């Protein structure tokens, strides 16, 4: 039986009276690439925030590689091997591209409280390798704050890979990019994931990207999972079609 990397059981979160995530259960198997789709406001980002500790769930449990991680702070969850990117790109604007990755590497290797050795020469090789993997090496010395949007997305990916995660959560990894770029970035991500035996969960609005990349697709609507299966099965699902085409159920 394939190893279950992430098991989510009945997770709920409401804001005021709105049930953003309303009892979601899911199991991710090692090495799979799963897409999480759904209309705006379906609860995708909230769900991600719960998995990575940015939000605390009202109920339910998140178990990662056999350990219950719900309630842990984000930095502790990252240390256990879950890494993420944000829907609105989040990088360190006044640091260079290389430093962005270095800082994550220094954190991964437990050296971020070191006071007296210059950071300049630490983790350079490994960081440069990650940058080369996402195709940003030529820009290593530029400040992240001046990068083009697509490059920021790549930088985030490099940062997210810095701790050799077992599970990668990508929140709209290609949003705001040109269509050609999108396919390329997702192909790159998928290649990296296969090579490292990474499990990936990503949200995405571009259906071409979703159906060409994902092994499985799950659909969130109003905080609930309404479909979960192979791309072909989900595409054929009447309820999913209704949600996306706006038909009454």
């Amino acid at each position: 039986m394939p190893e279950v990397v992430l098991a989510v059981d009945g997770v709920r979160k409401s804001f005021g009276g709105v049930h953003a995530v309303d009892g979601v259960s899911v199991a991710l198997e090692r090495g799979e690439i799963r897409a999480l789709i759904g209309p705006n406001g379906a609860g995708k980002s909230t769900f991600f925030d719960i998995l990575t500790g940015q939000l605390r769930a009202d109920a339910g449990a998140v178990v990662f590689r056999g350990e219950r991680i719900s309630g842990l702070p984000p930095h502790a969850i990252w240390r256990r091997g879950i890494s993420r990117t944000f829907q609105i790109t989040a990088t360190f604007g006044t640091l260079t591209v290389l430093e962005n990755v270095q800082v994550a590497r220094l954190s991964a290797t437990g050296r971020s409280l070191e006071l007296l050795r210059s950071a300049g020469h630490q983790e350079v090789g490994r960081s440069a390798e990650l940058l080369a993997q996402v195709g940003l090496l030529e820009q290593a010395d530029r400040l992240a704050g001046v990068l083009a949007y697509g490059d920021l997305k790549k930088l985030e990916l490099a940062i997210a890979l810095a701790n050799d995660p077992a599970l990668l959560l990508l929140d709209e990894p290609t949003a705001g990019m040109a269509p050609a770029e999108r396919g390329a970035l997702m192909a790159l991500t998928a290649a990296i994931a296969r090579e490292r035996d990474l499990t990936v969960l990503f949200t995405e609005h571009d259906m071409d990207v979703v159906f060409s990349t994902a092994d499985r697709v799950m659909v969130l609507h109003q905080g609930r999972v309404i479909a979960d299966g192979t791309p072909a099965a989900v595409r054929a699902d009447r309820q999913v079609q209704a949600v996306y085409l706006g038909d009454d159920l």
Partner: protein
Amino acid sequence: MSPSLLLIQGLSGLAHAMVLFLIASGLSLIFGVTRIVNFAHGSFYMLAAYLTYSFAAALPLGPASFYVAVVAAALATGLVGLVIEVGLLRRVYRAPELYQLLLTFALVLVIADVVRLGWGTENKTGPTAPGLAGSVRIAGQLFATYDLALIVLGPVVALVLWWLFYRTRWGVLIRAATQDREMVAVLGVDQARLFTSVFVLGSCLAGLGGALQVPRQALTNVMDTTIITEAFVVVVVGGMGSVPGAFLAAILIGVIDAFGVLLLPKASLVMIFVVMAVVLIARPWGLLGRPEAQARSAGGSVTAEARAIVPAPLVLALVAALVVVPPFLPRFHVLVLSEILIFALFAGSLHLLMGTGGMVSFGHAATFGLGAYGAALLLERARLPMLVAFALAPVVAAAGAALYGYFCVRLSSIYFAMLTLAFAQIAYAIVHQWYDVTGGDNGLLGVWPPRWLASPVRYYYLALVACAGGLALLAVIGRAPFGLTLRAARDHARRAEAVGIDVRRHQWAAFVVAGFFGGLAGAAFAFLKGSVFPNYLAVPMSVEPLVMVLLGGVQAFAGAAVGAAIYKVLDTVVTWYTDYWQLVIGLILVTLVVAFPRGVLGVLAERRRA
């Protein structure tokens, strides 16, 4: 104590609370909409009080003169606010928030000296309010009629403000802007006009507060600084931007103040800061404040473009000059140079928090004072040798910083700044009141180095080793993994958490390190002056390094030293030539902020790039 006396005390606290509310509501409004922390708000209050005094004397209207003077002074203060907003603040809205702070601080200096120039330094007694001059009997005790009138007026003003905010389109815009400024801008509201109108209204409220205070107290040159700290406490306790919060907090603070004087006169100085610290620890956004809408752009006050680095040969040449030249300088110059070094280190230690960590502390004087008192007490009470006391003092300061830093790092932005201020004020009050140990306001004297070190030049070299060494270490720390991690956390705390960085833990560590070096500077200063006084922990001592860091440029670590040198030299030279040094320095600061809105080094770096 009789119940009637308590009642009277409570009522007079309430009267004070109403004046406090007027000032604090204006301050809160201005912050809520423009995000400007207006240090000059207390200066507006003082200016209005003096204007009322002069208007009332000049107007030929008999008993009505006073009341007309009050309104005229409030409006005139609004006009001053208008000129300042349009003429100065508008130029710096796009600059990092901290430079706006520096600008309003410069205005404090300018207005303080304008008042001294216009009305002299002697206390003035203003007119009483005609018709309300007597007192009434309440529960057998006499109570000033005027205070009673204030207690009525306060809620009336609060109601008028409520009507403005909830019943006019302008009010809707203000509330929206307080919640989410960027959104209002996107909706096509004329921001410039909104900001100006809010600033003018806020200034009028400060003016009204000052004018109404005239019959209650003698006019002095220090009215501005006493009220501004109290007003900030009220605003923060109530929640920045919340007028109902300001009303509630003003009553809380006013009444606590009144009873504090009665019950614990020794602790009266510190009571309101203890209250503020407790409120902020329990409610990080004040009583009625709300968390700010999440900032959309990362990077905070530090911009990506300007990263100034001073070339190494220049630093070496400077150090060489600092080693070689002093024996040939006159005694006085050597002393000034020692002081510059000490303040360069002090500002450098603050830079680690402010620049590298993005945490603006209003209470960094605490570390300086703890270092200075630590050194003095270890020398005089523990009888340790001077060099040992010198070496241990920074540890004392670091321990203190660890204690209060633990609470401070749980807050953000202005609440963080105010909590640091609260802890500094608490430390100040302890030093000020604990006569048996600290000597109270007499300070501790005879804190001299041993004879072989006592000459100005010899002590200078010790200061050089300590301060240049400290600065060098701080520079190393800034470039070490720790410094890089702090900068990352400053740029984007959420991202930092999402790469395994425990942001609070690192910020706390930054507090301890900054406390250590701030304490080292304080210890060096104690032995330079041969004495320590409570004012080493007072507000101006927190503001000075802040100004230095901003003056030099918050982006570059070297900016702290550059700023310290510029500020100290200016201070020394200007004080030499004129009594009105605040005016001169204030005007220079205003000019510098408008000309160099990113600090001297920041602008130089941009020039070089262009």
